[in-house]
C-alpha cells in the first residue's frame, strides 16, 4: 500500500452523494478515508494541491477494445490501460473481440491479470455472449464471471439469432450481469461504410441506414421486456434509437444505453474527403441525430458516455475508405470532447457530466467506485475543465493514432488519475 494521499483544495464533485464543494479528500490504504471540508491528514501523507481543479469519482469507460491477445502490435492491455489513465479513466471494461475471442474463464483471467500487472487503470474483462462470437452457442457466463467478467457482449457484431439473445438475457440474470448488444441488422447494413444520406450519395459510398441500428434496438428492448433481463445497448447513434430507448424505459423495461463521445460531437460531414478516421460502426450521422443523442444524455434516456476506443495500425487506416477498418481511439480525447461539446455548450452541468462518466457506469455495470463516499475505493479523477489543449496523436499513450480530432483544440483535460490511492497518471507542464 502506498502512503496516504491528501488532495487539498479541489472542487469535489460527487453526484452520488450530491456533493459539489471545495474541500479536501483523504485516501488511506486504497480507500476513501475522509471527504470534504478541511482535512488534517496523518503524518507522512502525501499532500497534493488540487486548487482550481475538479476532484471527481474515477471515470469509467465501459466500452474499449484493447486488442490483447491477438493484435498486440496495435494495442496491449498495458498500453490501453496507460492511455485510459492519461485520459482520466480509472477503469475500463475491455470488449472480448480479441483473437482468439475472450469466451472462456482462462481468457477472462488472462485479460484481468494483464490489467493488474500493468498497474494503470483497472481493467474489467467482458466475456463473449456466444462461443467465438459466432452467434450459435452460449459461452460459459458463470465461469467467466467467476474469473472476473463484468458483462457479456459479442460487440463488433450483433447477436442475430433472437432465440440466443433471449436465452442470454435469461441466463445472465443468474449472475446479475448485463447483456451488452452491438445493435445492427447486418442484412440491412449490407456492407455499407458510412451513414446513408446525402453525403454517402455524393461520395458514392454505400450507406448504412439508421434503421439498421433501430430495428435491433427495438428487438432487444422487447426481448428484455419478455425476459426481465438487463439489456445494455452499445454506442447508440441515431435519433430513432433514443426514442425507442425512451419508450422502453417508460414501459419499465430493464434497458440501459450508452453513447460515444464521437457521436455527440461529429456528423457524417466528417467523412467528406474520405477521411478513414471518420469511419466507425455505427457511423457518424446527422446533426439532428447528434442533438437527439445529447438530449437523450441530458434527460437520462441514455445513461452513460463511452469511447468505443478502437485502435488500428496506421497503415490499416491508410487505404481506400470502404476497405479501411471501423473505429477510432478515444481514451485520451474523450474527456476533452465531452467537456467541449457537452459542458461548454451547456447541454450538461459539471455534475451531470461526472455522473455519466463516473457514477452511472459503476452503477449500471455493478462496478466498485463511482463515488467518493467514505469507504469506497480510492479511484479519483482530478481534471481541469477549462484547460485548453491541442490534440497531438503522436503523444498518445495508446499505440493507436487513429483519431478524427488530431490538431483540434479541446477544452478539459485530466491532470491526475488516481487508482486505489496511487497516482497512475500526472499531466506534465
Amino acid at each position, binding site marked *: 500500500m502506498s502512503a496516504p494521499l491528501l488532495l487539498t483544495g479541489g472542487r469535489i464533485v460527487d453526484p452520488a452523494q450530491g456533493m459539489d464543494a471545495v474541500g479536501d479528500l483523504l485516501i488511506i490504504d486504497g480507500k476513501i478515508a475522509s471527504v470534504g471540508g478541511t482535512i488534517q491528514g496523518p503524518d507522512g501523507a502525501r499532500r497534493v494541491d488540487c486548487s482550481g481543479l475538479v476532484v471527481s469519482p474515477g471515470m469509467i469507460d465501459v466500452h474499449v477494445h484493447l486488442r490483447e491477445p491477438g493484435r498486440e502490435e496495435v494495442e496491449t492491455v498495458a498500453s490501453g490501460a496507460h492511455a485510459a489513465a492519461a485520459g482520466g479513466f480509472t477503469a475500463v471494461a475491455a470488449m472480448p473481440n480479441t483473437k482468439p475471442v475472450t469466451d472462456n474463464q482462462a481468457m477472462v483471467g488472462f485479460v484481468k491479470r494483464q490489467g493488474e500487472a500493468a498497474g494503470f487503470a483497472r481493467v474489467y474483462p467482458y466475456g463473449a455472449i456466444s462461443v467465438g462470437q459466432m452467434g450459435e452457442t452460449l459461452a460459459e457466463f458463470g465461469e467467466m464471471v467467476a474469473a472476473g467478467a463484468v458483462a457479456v457482449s459479442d460487440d463488433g457484431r450483433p447477436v442475430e439469432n433472437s432465440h440466443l439473445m433471449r436465452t442470454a438475457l435469461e441466463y445472465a440474470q443468474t449472475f446479475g450481469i448485463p447483456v451488452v448488444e452491438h445493435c445492427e441488422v447486418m442484412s440491412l447494413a449490407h456492407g455499407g461504410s458510412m451513414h446513408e444520406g446525402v453525403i454517402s450519395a455524393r461520395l*458514392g459510398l454505400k450507406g448504412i441506414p439508421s434503421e439498421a441500428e433501430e430495428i435491433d434496438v427495438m428487438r432487444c428492448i422487447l426481448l428484455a421486456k419478455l425476459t426481465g433481463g438487463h439489456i445494455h445497448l452499445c454506442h447508440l447513434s441515431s435519433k430513432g434509437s433514443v426514442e425507442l430507448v425512451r419508450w422502453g424505459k417508460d414501459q419499465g423495461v430493464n434497458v440501459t444505453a450508452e453513447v460515444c463521445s464521437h457521436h455527440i460531437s461529429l456528423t457524417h460531414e466528417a467523412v467528406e474527403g474520405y477521411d478513414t478516421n471518420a469511419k466507425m460502426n455505427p457511423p457518424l450521422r446527422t446533426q439532428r441525430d447528434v442533438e437527439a443523442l445529447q438530449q437523450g444524455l441530458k434527460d437520462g434516456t441514455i445513461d452513460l458516455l463511452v469511447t468505443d476506443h478502437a485502435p488500428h495500425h496506421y497503415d490499416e487506416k491508410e487505404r481506400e475508405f470502404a476497405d479501411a477498418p471501423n473505429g477510432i481511439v478515444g481514451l485520451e480525447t474523450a474527456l476533452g470532447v465531452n467537456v467541449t461539446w457537452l459542458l461548454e455548450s451547456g447541454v450538461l452541468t459539471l455534475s451531470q457530466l461526472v455522473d455519466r462518466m463516473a457514477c452511472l457506469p459503476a452503477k449500471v455495470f455493478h462496478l466498485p467506485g463511482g463515488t467518493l463516499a467514505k469507504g469506497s475505493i480510492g479511484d479519483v479523477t482530478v481534471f481541469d475543465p477549462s484547460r485548453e489543449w491541442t490534440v497531438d496523436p503522436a503523444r498518445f499513450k495508446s499505440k493507436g493514432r487513429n483519431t478524427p480530432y488530431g490538431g483540434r483544440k479541446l477544452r478539459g483535460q485530466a491532470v491526475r488519475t488516481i487508482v486505489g490511492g496511487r497516482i497512475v497518471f500526472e499531466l506534465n507542464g
Partner: protein
Amino acid sequence: MTILGKDLIGLAGLTREQITTILDVAEPLKAISERAIKKVPTLRGMTVVNLFFEPSTRTRISFEFAEKRMSADTVNVAAAASSVSKGETLVDTARNLEAMRIDMVVIRHPASGAARFLAERIESNVINAGDGTHEHPTQGLLDLLTLRDKLGSLDGKRICIVGDVLHSRVARSNIWGLQAMGAEVAVCGPRSLLPNAIREMGVQVFDRIEAAIEWADALNVLRLQLERMQLGYIPSLREYNRIFGVTRARLERAPRDLLILHPGPMNRGVEIDSDVADGPHSVILHQVTNGVAVRMAVLYLLAGNKASLADVAKGGAA
C-alpha cells in the same frame, strides 16, 4: 495554365468557368484526330501511367490515344485491386510508380475515393478515370461536350439520366457537371437503383420513362450492370426493359427530338433497344470521338501543375 489544380478528381466543385475552359480547349484538339498524322508534340517527354484496377477497354484506350496523340510516353498497368490486406496496397503501388519518375497517373479503381486518396499522396498529376460509384469526370466532360455540340448552350436544357444512378459514377459526374453548366437535371429509374437522398442533390425524379421522355431534351442512358439483378435490386432484366427501356416506340411519342447518350458498353435490348442505339437520335459514337479530345484537353491543362513535396506531405496537394 492553372485552370485546374494538380489533379482532376471529379466535376463536383468545378465552376462553370473551369468546365467551359476544358471544353473550349478540347474544341480545337478534336481536329488532331481527324488528320492523317494524328500527333502533336505538346506532352513530349512526359510519362503517363494508366493504372487500371478494374477492367476497362473503352476508357483506357481513349486515354491511351489521347496521351499518344499528345506525344506522351505511356505505360499501361493492369493491377488487381487488392481486397483488404491482400497484395500490395494502393499507396505502395503508387509510390513505386512514382519512384520511377513519372509525371501523371490515370487511375481507374473500384473503391470510391481511390483517386483522391492517391492524389493526396503523390506529386504526380492524378486523373480520375472512374473511382467506384463516385465520379468519372472525363466521361462527364465528354457528355457535356457532346451536348454542347448538339444543343449549343446548356443553360435551361433538360437532361434526364436513366437507370442505375445508385451505382453510377457517370451519373454523379453528369449531375454536377450539368448543374454547373446551367442545365436542369432529372433521373429516372427504379427507386431501388436511386439514392434515397437523390432529391437533396437538386435533381428531379421520374418514375416513368414516358414522363422523362416527355420532359427531356436529352437522355443519358446508363449501362445496367448485369450483377444488379443477382444482388436483388431488380427482379429481372426483362421487366427492366419493359418498364425503363428506351425504345423506338416510346421515343416516337416524344414532343421534340431527343438526343440519346450512352456511356457504353451497351446492353442492347436491356436499357436501350438497338434501333434507338443505331437510330437518328443517337449521339453515342460522337461521345466516343469527343472522349479523346476531352482527355487531351485535361492532360494538357494538368501538365505542369505539379505539387511540391511539402504540399504532398501536408496532404494538401489539390
